[in-house]
């Protein structure tokens, strides 16, 4: 791939996925500036490692969601690595009023997603993330497998188990409601 082709290819990856990645963070954070910073960090990590991306091994969406997961984990742990990335990106960029309004609207739109994530909290982490990536993130199971770094067969098993557990939780809650 020639240099100018690489930049154009990355731009396509960016434009195809930036909305979904922003929503991924909008389900986890209610601060517009933080959603913006984490989205920016994700794409800085992506563009600086794009030379390692191999579309024969999986889609760009799965690859990007994998980076987004690590970005969020780094944010939670306040690792040195996340600080380095922020510095490489030229530091935090303050959002203007229009951008703030846009991101606030997205955060509001993800409210049902945040509720669902709370309900998923009782599931093991990987099952929870599998359900989120497939049912909220819109990834195909095989793309979610790439994002989570698990074999495709294992992803199907996790999704099946997670949905079975969720059904059990919902049925238990329904029974509790009936008794009240």
């Amino acid at each position, binding site marked *: 791939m020639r*240099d100018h082709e690489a*930049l154009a290819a990355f731009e396509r990856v960016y434009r195809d996925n930036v909305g979904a990645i922003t929503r991924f963070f909008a389900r986890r954070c209610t601060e517009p500036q933080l959603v913006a910073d984490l989205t920016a960090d994700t794409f800085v990590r992506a563009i600086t490692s794009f030379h390692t991306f191999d579309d024969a091994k999986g889609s760009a969406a799965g690859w990007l969601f994998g980076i987004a997961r690590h970005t969020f984990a780094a944010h939670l742990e306040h690792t040195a690595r996340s600080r380095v990335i922020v510095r490489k990106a030229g530091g935090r960029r303050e959002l*203007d009023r229009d951008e703030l309004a846009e991101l606030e609207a997205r955060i509001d739109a993800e409210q049902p997603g945040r509720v669902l994530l709370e309900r998923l909290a009782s599931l093991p982490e990987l099952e929870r993330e599998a359900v989120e990536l497939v049912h909220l993130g819109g990834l195909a199971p095989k793309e979610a497998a790439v994002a989570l770094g698990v074999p495709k067969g294992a992803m199907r098993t996790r999704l099946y188990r997670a949905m079975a557990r969720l059904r059990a939780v919902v049925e238990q809650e329904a029974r509790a409601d009936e008794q009240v």
Partner: protein
Amino acid sequence: MSRFEDNLWARLEREQAPTLLQNMATQRRKRTARWMGAAAGVAVLGGVAAATYLGGTPPAYAVVDNPDGSVTLTIREIQRFEEATAKLRDRGIPAIAVPLRRDCAQQGNTLHDPLNAVEFDLSPEAFNIKILRDRIPAGGTVVLATDKARGDGWIITGGVYGSDQLPGCLLDRSPR
């Protein structure tokens, strides 16, 4: 796209595009190093030489007459391999292209003497196949073959064979 997304892209392009381009260039250099490493291991056995090209994007081919009478065929677009080989015939060099196969049983009659009538020189951008025409014996034909190698590269091989017993293919001995 939204204003936030447009602004973020503008910033990424402005601040990170040089890093992307630098990383791509570094990766190309690493591939070239792998390629040159393969070239160092080129074996010339029984008049047959082989080399593996492990990366890069190929454009076109060219035939150049060297001052010493040899001819260099430079191939940058491997898909036009047969067409490039035909150019050798235009220069009076008996040469054919045949398939490269793992199950090739048609060995033909390899001419062992003189050796090194075909030399491979691998540059970062192309295959250079040098044909030393004065080392091709009477009744000899240069046989060249290529196919995809492991990864995104190509393997190219060839040698001098008796024109009366040419192979219909060459044996692919590359690792998989």
